[in-house]
């Protein structure tokens, strides 16, 4: 069951990959281009493949649920893949409302990155600690992820809008910021690439160190340690020895991973520039040429409108109900809770700003992008760096 589940996830990954290519084809396709007469053949195939991928991932989810005896949303790997699945699900629904192939072309890669990113974390099926043994866990986490995924569609729409609407040939504040966002995406690719390379080669080095609170521990690095733990003792001296030592309050292993991801990201980015001699956004721009800006703007707004109630229900209301049962208080100002509140306040601000003149189009697209950054911050930084009750024991 466990291996079947893994295979289904892998199959869905491949299908999303193929789907992306087919959506790209639908935009390049010069034939069936009678304007405004619905999506062409390629787009229809693309959606078909996406749905197949979604079903395959649903199969992964169900089989893993059966194997574990609980819904697979209880560690970083499981939650992030589930988030990716919800994103694809949200895309499929919104696609059938607005029939915009470019949305698929940009959503599927985001889902691919999420699943790829998730796969870099321990994939073991983990047993549930007492506080997680509740049906409210499933209800809360799944609705919250679904809400975030629907909200994330406004990020995709925002990206399409900005890629199309901004002039990338000149360096301006907006074009630079957009390129920075895309560089962030490249660094995520960098993280996946470099982690995969070293994990295939089975690289391991080990350190003994004493943390700020005088607790002794051994840590295992799976990337060559450019940065080593504070006053760490290298137990595998045949492996690469650290160039510098991290201060005591910083987790050297995570810092090291961040540095490797950034370096790989920079290399990939430079390679890209070398090959295309243009900014990423500029290379992507032709792919957005058939997207109507007003429609893209409306998709962004609409997805926030649809996602906001779902997010409120899942990430705040259900969360409070569960916290009241598990921890005896519905709200405890734990970092994860606070960041859910921040996300919620942010999208509330988005909705109110839409009431005012001028907060449509580009500005609104930027808000969609920022909202997604907040969601990702909550997923990645809060889980891995700002420890709290919700922190997944990731690495």
């Amino acid at each position, binding site marked *: 069951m466990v291996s079947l589940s893994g295979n289904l996830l892998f199959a869905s990954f491949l299908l999303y990959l193929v789907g992306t290519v087919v959506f790209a084809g639908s935009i390049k396709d010069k034939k069936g281009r009678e304007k405004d007469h619905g999506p062409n053949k390629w787009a229809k195939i693309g959606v078909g493949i996406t749905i197949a991928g979604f079903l395959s991932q649903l199969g992964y989810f169900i089989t893993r649920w059966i194997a574990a005896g609980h819904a697979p949303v209880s560690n970083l790997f499981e939650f992030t893949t589930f988030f990716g699945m919800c994103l694809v699900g949200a895309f499929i629904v919104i696609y059938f409302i607005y029939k915009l192939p470019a949305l698929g072309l940009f959503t599927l890669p985001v889902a691919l990155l999420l699943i790829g990113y998730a796969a870099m974390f321990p994939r073991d099926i983990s047993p549930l600690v007492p*506080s997680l043994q509740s049906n409210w866990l499933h209800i809360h986490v799944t609705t919250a992820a679904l809400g975030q995924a629907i909200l994330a569609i406004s990020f995709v729409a925002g990206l399409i809008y900005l890629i199309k609407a901004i002039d990338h040939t000149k360096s301006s504040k907006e074009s630079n910021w957009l390129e920075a966002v895309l560089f962030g995406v490249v660094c995520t690719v960098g993280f996946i690439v470099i982690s995969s390379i070293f994990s295939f080669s089975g690289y391991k080095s080990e350190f003994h160190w004493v943390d700020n609170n005088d607790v002794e521990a051994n840590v295992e690095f799976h990337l060559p340690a450019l940065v080593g733990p504070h006053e760490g003792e290298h137990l595998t001296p045949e492996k690469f020895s650290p160039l510098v030592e991290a201060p005591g309050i910083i987790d050297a292993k995570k810092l090291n991973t961040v540095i490797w991801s950034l370096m790989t990201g920079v290399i990939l980015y430079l390679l890209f520039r070398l090959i295309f001699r243009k900014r990423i956004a500029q290379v992507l721009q032709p792919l957005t040429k058939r997207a109507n800006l007003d429609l893209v703007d409306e998709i962004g707004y609409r997805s926030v409108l649809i996602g906001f109630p779902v997010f409120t229900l899942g990430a705040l209301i259900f969360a409070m109900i569960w916290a009241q049962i598990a921890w005896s208080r519905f709200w405890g100002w734990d970092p994860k809770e606070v960041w859910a509140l921040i996300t919620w306040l942010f999208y509330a601000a988005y909705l109110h700003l839409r009431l005012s003149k001028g907060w449509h189009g580009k500005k609104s697209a930027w808000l969609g992008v920022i909202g997604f950054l907040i969601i990702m911050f909550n997923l990645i930084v809060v889980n891995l760096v700002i420890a709290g009750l919700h922190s997944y024991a990731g690495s």
Partner: protein
Amino acid sequence: MKQVKCECGHVNPHGTVLCESCGRVLVEEEKKKKLVDMRYEGSARRSQTYNKTIIDKIWNFFSSVKVGVTLIIITLAASAIGTIFPQEMYIPTTEPASVYYESQYGVAGKLYYLLGFHNLYSSWWYLLLIASIGISLVICSLDRVVPLYRALKNQKVSRHEGFLKRQRLFGTSQVEELDSSYELVKEKLKKNRYNIREENGNILAEKGRFSRWGPYINHIGLIIFLAGGMLRFVPGMYVDELLWVREGETAVIPETDGEYYLENHQFILEVYDKDKDNEAFNNAIENSGMVAKNFQSDVTLYKKSAETVAGEEPILDKVQDYELRVNEPLKFENFALYQQSYKLDELNKMSFALTNKENNEEFGDLTIDLYNPQDEYDLGDGYKVEVMSYFPDFEFDENSEPVTKSRIPNNPAFIFKMITPDKPDGEVSFVAIKQTIEPFGDNEFKMAFKGVETKNVTALTVRKDLTLGVLAVGGFIFMVGVVQGAYWNHRRIWIRRVDGEVWVAGHTNKNWHGLKREISTIFDGTGINEPKDQSDESDKSIESNSKEE
């Protein structure tokens, strides 16, 4: 108060921009615009009309969405800062906050502490921010909902030409078979679930008006929720206590006026077992070592009997036995008990033997209950041990005097006086774990350590929260309101005959794409042209051309 009478005869409140009844543009300035501002139907909002007294000014300040959004953004930013370092309630209790932040996080930590961010969410200025959002919500909703309600209630079917012309969706047609076209359109409108009103051959088709109340309903829900949050500060509404109970002990439950008692039979800690539990977990268990599976206290709840005589031992009536686990609190009346924490193997009893140091001859054993030591233990035959001092949680203070840190026997120490027939005045000995001091020189006797008895202790949160009901109601109303406003929209289509032409205008408060698609199916094949989108392509503010202050 000056009222504005429209040419159509309707009397509008002072400040009205578009006549509530016929929609005629009443303000000169507005007439110059290509499209009218439809956000609040051009109704007379207090905040847009009065600005004289101090009350007007406060009202106008809080009714502005710009101010509301600014408050939300400030709260958001402040909340984020509060997560940089852990809040005071999450830091270990071993060090006071004033020391902890600096020792852990250096200068940044010190600054964080000095600025009060370590206790951000209960700071006065954070609460003030939330309160301002609440005030803003109330005022801005009142400012809009009443005029909006009036305008929607008073709207007439036949709208003024100037009003129709300035709608975002607008078109005119010459129609040959007018009657059959009308019938067809009406039929299609009905099929799309529009309510149709007719007057002199003009039509107003409308649906989803109730969605306009969504925001106001959700704001009411929020207000109720915030009010519920404030209720916590009313005495008696909220209880948060921690109750430690050792195995075998019966303790009175705090805050129940001595009415309820709880007996802890045993505390159970289970971990996942590779051989017994789901095989799928094996890898994870191997990688992370021990994984907790269950924290459980087997308890009995008692209620004090009415027959209890004041001043005497209470008589207890059993209420129920319960296996109290995480996620499965024990509820009674308005209280709930939660499995919160535990301590395994806490020292409970210690035994010693009075022993001659020379030949190790023993003169009797004594067992000391660490929670309730006796003053003296008579061993018979003239052998006796007095407990001169007892330090349950012993340490030396700065003057090297023995003191106790708490009443929990984490590190018990005693000063014994050993009285024997040989030494009738007694010998004094200081005995702590792995440590014996004989303050007055060499003793003949010693207290030889024999063993300890330990017990598990469970910690339960005692909770009463009478605000939950109010919060639930607020949350529910909020959800109803957001769903209403987000998943439905208010669409209107006006059809009017003007000088042998048919004029059609359409408006929706959101989701123009949906309205346009619907309109295109409605007018398709009816002989009436589909209205066109007049919003300026170069001006990307497509949603509406309104200006929100």
